[in-house]
């Protein structure tokens, strides 16, 4: 807990006075690790990430990011995080390079840092010459690679990726996963991601939390969870946990 960059305690989010999207969850994310929130659609993953990214506010409970409260110190939290929503886009009439430059300038403290961020972004996107094309000409895969690059290139203390490979073909999904792995290895940043693809999470994450109907069912490393439940992969862990709940 001492080196935790994210601390979530008894987090509750209620929509329209009755629907409990997140129902009293608690977890922490250690500095430098890749942490995955896994669960089916509607489990509460996106809501949790949106609260951590200061877009939504909790109904009750506490969320601390880098020592700052996401409600009271939202401005400070935004300076140390970089967030990629599931259904994100880019400014269609900017080129890929202009978009990366725009984001770099928002985070950088000086010209040197802008150049450094851009260099990382260009490399992470793997889009090469296509960065000089307008974003409106990009395929879904190209756009997602650009957005992953813009999220990670600014070297945030915490990168939040909501379903980073959702809807991508195999080649683009592999590229995105590799970019995340490479970033974590080379820069050593903390990544909090969500996915309903449990095999992907098993490959990427150091630790995972399995979330279902707004509640966390289990937390641990993929290996630890698989061993504890005597199954062969995380999907089977999830099925076992859900059926036990019923």
């Amino acid at each position: 807990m001492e080196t935790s960059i994210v601390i979530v305690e008894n987090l509750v989010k209620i929509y329209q006075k009755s629907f409990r999207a997140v129902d009293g969850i608690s977890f922490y994310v250690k500095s430098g690790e890749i942490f995955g929130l896994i669960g089916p659609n509607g489990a509460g993953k996106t809501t949790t990430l949106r609260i951590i990214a200061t877009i939504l506010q909790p109904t009750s409970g506490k969320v601390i990011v880098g020592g700052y409260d996401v409600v009271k110190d939202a401005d400070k939290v935004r300076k140390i995080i970089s967030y990629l929503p599931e259904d994100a886009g880019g400014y269609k009439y900017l080129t890929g390079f202009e978009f990366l430059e725009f984001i770099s300038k928002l985070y950088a403290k000086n010209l040197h840092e802008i150049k450094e961020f851009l260099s990382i972004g260009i490399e992470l996107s793997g889009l090469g010459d296509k960065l000089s094309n307008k974003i409106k000409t990009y395929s879904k895969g190209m756009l997602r690679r650009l957005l992953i690059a813009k999220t990670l290139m600014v070297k945030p203390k915490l990168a939040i990726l909501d379903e980073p490979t959702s809807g991508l073909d195999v080649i683009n999904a592999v590229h995105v996963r590799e970019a995340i792995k490479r970033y974590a290895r080379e820069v050593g940043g903390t990544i909090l991601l969500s996915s309903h693809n449990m095999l992907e999470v098993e490959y990427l994450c150091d630790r995972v939390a399995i979330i279902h109907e707004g509640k966390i069912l289990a937390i641990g490393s993929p290996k630890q969870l698989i061993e504890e439940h005597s199954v062969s992969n995380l999907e089977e862990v999830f099925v076992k946990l859900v059926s036990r709940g019923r």
Partner: protein
Amino acid sequence: MFWLFVVKELKSIIRDPKLLIAMVIVPLILMTILYFIIGQGMIQQIEQTIRESGIVAVFDMDGENYSQIFINYLNSLGLKTIIINSTNVDEAIEIFKGLEAKILYIIPPRFSYNLSSLRPSVVHVYVKLGALTIGEGGIVDIASRYVSLFNSYIIKTVASEKGIPPEFIGEAITGATRGLLADRIIDNPSNIVFALTMGGLFIPLIILMLVIFSAQLVATSMAVEKEEKMFETLLSLPINRMCVIGAKLLVSIAIGAIYMIGYSFALFGLLFRSIPGFESLQEIPLAMSLPSDIGIYVLLNVVGLAIFMVSVALLLSLFAEDVRSAQAILGNVIGPTIIAVYLPMFVDISSSPSIRLALSFVPLANTVFIPKIAVVQDITALAISSLSNLVYGVIMFMVIRRIVNSETIFTLKLRVGRKKAM
């Protein structure tokens, strides 16, 4: 950070056809509708003029044969004449104020003697001014025209009586026209009415240009963030959210102002070329009729209006999920906007101060009304007009700030539109 967003906004506007459509086509459609409305308004006012100028009052200080010929001549033109019995001009004017007639002719003493002696006479003409509309501008012209018609008639009559050619007499009667506006007598009223009515027609058009154009632009640029799925990302960026809003407002108002200035030059350039006598507006002693600090009142009013209207557009655009719905939502407020702009055209400013006061609280209407309020020197209404828009603008800005700095900015559409998956 702020300027980074300003540059980004400008790039998007230059490159995005949707924004270009909002910039050019939508205002053009609206302007076409407006011209139609103005045309209808002018026709109604001209009809009203014809009705109102059918009754004239006459104060006859001569009482001899030629003054009676003048009165008979007015009757022969189909006018109903009301004869004022009074001992002096001031009293006659007071009586005239209470009459239905809009025009008062004062036939001076020795009118008949001068005519029979072939000396020119001056008929003093007073026209009641109230709404300062195009119709009233027409009444001023008509009042003078009756005098010049009688001049032609009497020259022929006198020439025939004296057995001399009409050219020998030259000018027998001239009319000196003054306006009566809220207890004040105004010299050269046709020019002032002309200036104010032209202003009343075209200044609203120009202000509407600024307001509609800027509102369209800011609403569209906000909706583009959602349509391009950048909104959620934007809310998580390390920048004060009000900077983003401020950048959008600045760019929209700045482009709107440039568009407005260009439009004004084009419009007034056209007017100067196509309307005879428009150049003479430079000679109008308008400044004498207006308070010296009118510029400050107008500036405060227009700045407040721009902030208020663009803030309204911005607020409405927060409900929209894409550019099309933003345009649709905004379209619903365009109608009331046009009504507010052209409301003062049909209001008599010499009416009760409470009506002036009420209008000075109505955004847009007060902008159009402000020169007329200045003419009657209603300082209270003037001050309210110049400050109320600013107050509304600040209130709207505070509402937006409250929304922007909470999760409401993100969830607003969820409550209004369909429910979104968690």
